Structures are given as structure tokens and as C-alpha cells.
């Protein structure tokens, strides 16, 4: 194994890791806000990828231009899902954790079924987009443009999220609602409105990820399943409740995956990710930066 292969592996792993971070950011935000894990997160990604595909196929809108549109659409979708499903799941007096897991999980199955019903189980791809298939080569190291853009978007999203949560009124309202929903009601903040906006924002983030992913990944009803588990592990590794943790978690997952594939047969590369997760939580039961 040459130095070049190792550098290339790590560079690719880093790009992929930042993308995992972007995919997981919405999950981390939603969890941080209301302690709910959205088990339909992978299906949100799938919907975003289909939205990008159809905007491209029917209106010839390039995925890069479509990204804000898809994010906006997912924002609405996320808020609606909160109002129609999650709101009721949070009201459960008994078995709250179980109800959240299985209501969002049931939702995931419904979304897959609907995708198969309306979009057919065929495999779709976005062909001939602006940056699709383009790649930058620096000293023999190849950096594909879609992943580079995804990585930059990921960094930008996390910076924006940091400022949003810590420096804006709405961000503070989110934080306050999380800490004491009863008290904020007294000062006139509607809990459901705040949570719906939080879900919208989380979904919008995965919408961005989906638009970028659509450039270089195939699209079909079950595509979310490949990413869902990685997204959960990413968030849990970084620590639930910490948005920065999801960012760090994504990078670690990407690098560990690339490194494992160099050492073990590639079919076992996920084992590296899972093992690192277990090691981390056995030492730090709340993940690397978790507050919960």
C-alpha cells in the first residue's frame, strides 16, 4: 500500500464523513430539541433525493439550484410530520420512548410504500448535472466535485446552526423550550410552533444533503436504509444533544470507515464504525460531546 493510496483513502473518507455529518445534522438538531429520535430519517433523505430527481427530470433544474427548493419543501414536510404524527407521540403518557421509536418507524415503512407506489421500484439517477462526474485532481489525489461541494455545505451548515442556536432569538427559544416547556408557555411561546419549526429545520438540513447526494447516488424507495443506521451512529457517537458532536461524529465515521477498508476486507468496513461506537460509549456513555 503506497502513501498515495493512504492519503487518497483518508481524503475520500473525510469528504464522505462530512457528508455523513450533513445527513445526521437534522437528526441531531431534532434530538437536541425534544429528545426524539426520528427513525424515518433515512426516508426523509429518500424523499429529498426523489424531489431533486424530479425537479431535474421535469424542469431541468440542476441539483445545485434545486437544493434550496428541496430544503424548503422538506422544511414544510418536516413541520407537517411533526404536527400530524410526532406531536401525538410526545403526548403518550406511557412507554413514551417506545411510542416515538415505533410511530416514526411505522412512518418510515409508509413512506417507502408510498414511494414504491408513486415512483415505482425502478432505480433512478440524475445524469449530466453541472458537477456530476467531475473531479479535481491534486498531485494524484482525486477529489470529486459533488462530494467537495457536499463537504463545504456540511461545514457551512454546522457553522450556521451554531450561530442560529446560540445567537438568535429563535434559537434561544428552541433551547428554552427544550429545557422547560412549561415555563416558556408562561412567557407566550407556543411549544408546538417551536417544535414544528425545529422539525422543519431538521428536515430542511437533510433536504440539502439529499440534493447533493442525488448528484452522485442512485435513487430508489429503499435508498434511505443504507444511510439511516450510519446517521444514528454518527449522532450517538458525537453525543445526543450536541450539534457539534454530530459534526465530529461524521468526520470520525468517515475516517474510520476508510481506515477499516484498508485493513479488513471491505465487506467488513462497517464493523470498524460499529466497534468505534461501542468503544466510545463504553468509556463515555453519553458519546463524545453529549449532554444527555
Amino acid at each position, binding site marked *: 500500500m503506497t502513501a498515495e493510496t493512504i492519503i487518497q483513502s483518508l481524503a475520500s473518507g473525510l469528504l464522505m464523513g462530512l457528508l455523513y455529518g450533513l445527513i445526521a445534522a437534522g437528526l441531531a438538531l431534532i434530538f437536541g430539541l425534544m429528545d426524539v429520535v426520528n427513525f424515518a430519517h433515512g426516508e426523509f433523505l429518500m424523499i429529498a433525493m426523489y424531489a431533486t430527481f424530479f425537479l431535474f427530470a421535469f424542469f431541468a433544474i440542476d441539483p445545485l439550484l434545486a437544493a434550496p427548493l428541496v430544503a424548503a419543501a422538506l422544511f414544510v414536510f418536516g413541520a407537517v410530520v411533526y404536527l400530524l404524527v410526532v406531536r401525538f407521540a410526545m403526548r403518550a403518557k406511557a412507554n413514551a420512548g417506545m411510542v416515538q421509536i415505533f410511530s416514526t418507524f411505522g*412512518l418510515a*415503512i409508509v413512506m417507502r*410504500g408510498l414511494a414504491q*407506489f408513486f415512483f415505482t421500484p425502478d432505480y433512478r439517477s440524475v445524469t449530466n448535472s453541472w458537477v456530476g462526474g467531475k473531479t479535481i485532481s491534486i498531485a494524484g489525489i482525486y477529489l470529486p466535485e459533488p462530494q467537495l461541494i457536499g463537504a463545504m455545505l456540511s461545514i457551512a451548515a454546522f457553522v450556521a446552526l451554531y450561530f442560529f442556536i446560540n445567537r438568535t432569538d429563535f434559537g434561544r427559544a428552541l433551547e428554552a423550550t427544550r429545557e422547560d416547556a412549561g415555563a416558556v408557555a408562561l412567557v407566550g411561546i407556543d411549544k408546538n410552533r417551536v417544535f414544528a419549526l425545529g422539525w422543519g429545520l431538521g428536515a430542511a438540513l437533510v433536504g440539502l444533503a439529499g440534493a447533493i447526494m442525488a448528484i452522485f447516488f442512485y435513487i430508489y424507495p429503499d435508498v434511505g436504509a443504507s444511510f439511516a443506521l450510519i446517521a444514528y451512529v454518527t449522532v*450517538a457517537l458525537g453525543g445526543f444533544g450536541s450539534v457539534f458532536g454530530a459534526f465530529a461524529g461524521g468526520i470520525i465515521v468517515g475516517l474510520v470507515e476508510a481506515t477499516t477498508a484498508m485493513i479488513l476486507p471491505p*465487506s467488513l468496513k462497517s464493523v470498524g464504525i460499529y466497534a468505534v461506537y*461501542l468503544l466510545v460509549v463504553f468509556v463515555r456513555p453519553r458519546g463524545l460531546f453529549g449532554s444527555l
Partner: protein
Amino acid sequence: MDTHFAQRRRRDLIVAACLAAVAALVPLFVKDVYVQNIMVLTLMYAALSQSWNILSGYCGQISLGHALYFGLGAYTTALLFTKFGVLPWFGMLAGGAISAVIAMALGYPCFRLRGHYFVIATIVIAEIALLLIQNWDWAGAALGIDIPVRGDSWLKFQFARSKLPYFYFALALACIAWLVTWWLEDSKWGYWWRAVKDNPDAAESLGVVVFYSKMGAAAVSAFLVAVGGSFYAQFVSYIDPESVMGFQFSLLMALPAVLGGIGTLWGPVLGAVILIPLTELTRSFVGGSGRGVDLIVYGALIVAISLALPKGLVSVFGMLSGRKEAAR
């Protein structure tokens, strides 16, 4: 002791005995193998879900990785039989014992984890095991293990056509899982678990003993699920990693309990009796359109029941008979 509670327990036992007796007579009237097959699966999932419920329901440690123990049971039995000629009855016990030991070994570090950290740990551990078996050539890797069926034999627990032996085994397993749960409810473990659930502060004072009781619950739960896995290997007579250790099995085991009523004695049975025939019949008679309608129905049902009845379907029955959970 609370007499109301004791009364209820006696009544539960009588009801269970009657139900088991009725169930045992059903195959005398239902001769159709397709229907018998659904009954076997229903009983098997009732047993699996009941076992899962011990750890995840009563003990509150939500595991979405029980496919690990199911697969271990199936693989231990199948490997011992095909490689060493060990009869499945011994393989069943061996698989159960191995699973119980592994469950305790994993429980030791995992029980310190809470909430979603624990759930994700159970998922990834099962995934690791799946990947390892899928890459383990001696165990058949992805090709799986084909258990040769050479005519009917109780010794080898294989029957070419008859479903009855499988039916009675599954019924026995479901009864055992139910009895274990029934017994645990009234044991000191059961009291600790309830105490911890009702009052998290009590967990602190009970700390160490509760920890060991959880280890015990994990072992019992894993043992029974592994026996279920062994049974499945004999019943299908072919196993491969995805079909016995895939994530979907962890969910399929949890669903009857969740829908029927998690942490209740009757929830898993009720859930399995409704869910399994429903999924089998929709596949046979509605599915096949290739349009995902069965998925939509199935998923919507899960959403609706978990939202409308967070305590599961048993809560409906509880309301009908006007029975409050006074004993709790």
C-alpha cells in the same frame, strides 16, 4: 401480599391453561397446511416476543438487536447438526446456553448505557455479528446452511410434510415463555423492575441488585429467543445470515409486544395473534401487486396503534372488563 394481585395471577394462569388447551385442539379441526403454517408462525412470534418482552418490556432495556440471539440459536443448531451430526435437541440447548452467556457478556458493558445509546448499541452489535457470519466461510458465509431432510424423524426433529410436530413445539415454547414471564412478574426481580420504573430514584438505592437482575433477564430472554431460532432452522430447514440475523427479525420480535402492550403478560400473545396472520394473509392475497400497498397498510397500522394505544391493544381489553391496573 395484595390479594387482588394474587387473584389476578391465579385467573391469568387459568385463562392461559384454557387457551393452551384450546390451541392444542385446533389442529385436529384445521387440516390445511397453509393455515397450520400461519398458526406455527403465530405461536413462534408469540414466544419470541414474550421473551423479548422480559428484557425490553419488564426490564425497560429496549433491545432492537435480538436477531443476534435468534441467529445464534439457528446457526448453532444447524452447524452442530450438519458438521458434527449433533441432534438438534442438543443443538437447541447449546444455542440457548451460548446465547445466554453472550447476552450476559454484552449486558455487562451495555446496561450502563441509557435510552437511545443502549438501543443503538444493540442494533450495531447484531449488525457486527451478521457481517461476521456473512464473511465466515466455514459457516457457509452468504450461502447459508441447507439442512438435509431425510424423511420424518422426532430424533432429528424434521418432518417432510406434517406441521403438527412443529405446531406443538411452538405451542410448548410459547407456553414456557409465558410461564417464565408469569413467574417473573411475581418474583423479587419483577418487584425491583416495577419499583425502578415507578420511581427512578429507587434505582439508585437498588443499584447493584437491579443490575444483576437485568443480567439475569438478558440471559433468560436470550436463551428463549435462541431456542426459537433453533426451532426456526429446523422448521425452514435452510438458514442464511440475512434471513435469521437481519435487522427485520429484531423488529418482528418487538412488534407483537409493542402493539399488544409492552411490559404486559398478555401483550405479546395478543399482538402476535393479530399481527402475524394479518401480514401472512395480506402477502398471500393482497400483496403481489408489486406496488407497495402492503407496506403502506402495515406501516400505517403501526403508526396508528402506537399513537392511539401507547399501552397496546391489551389496554382495550382492560377497559372492557373495567379492570384497572390497581395491582401496580
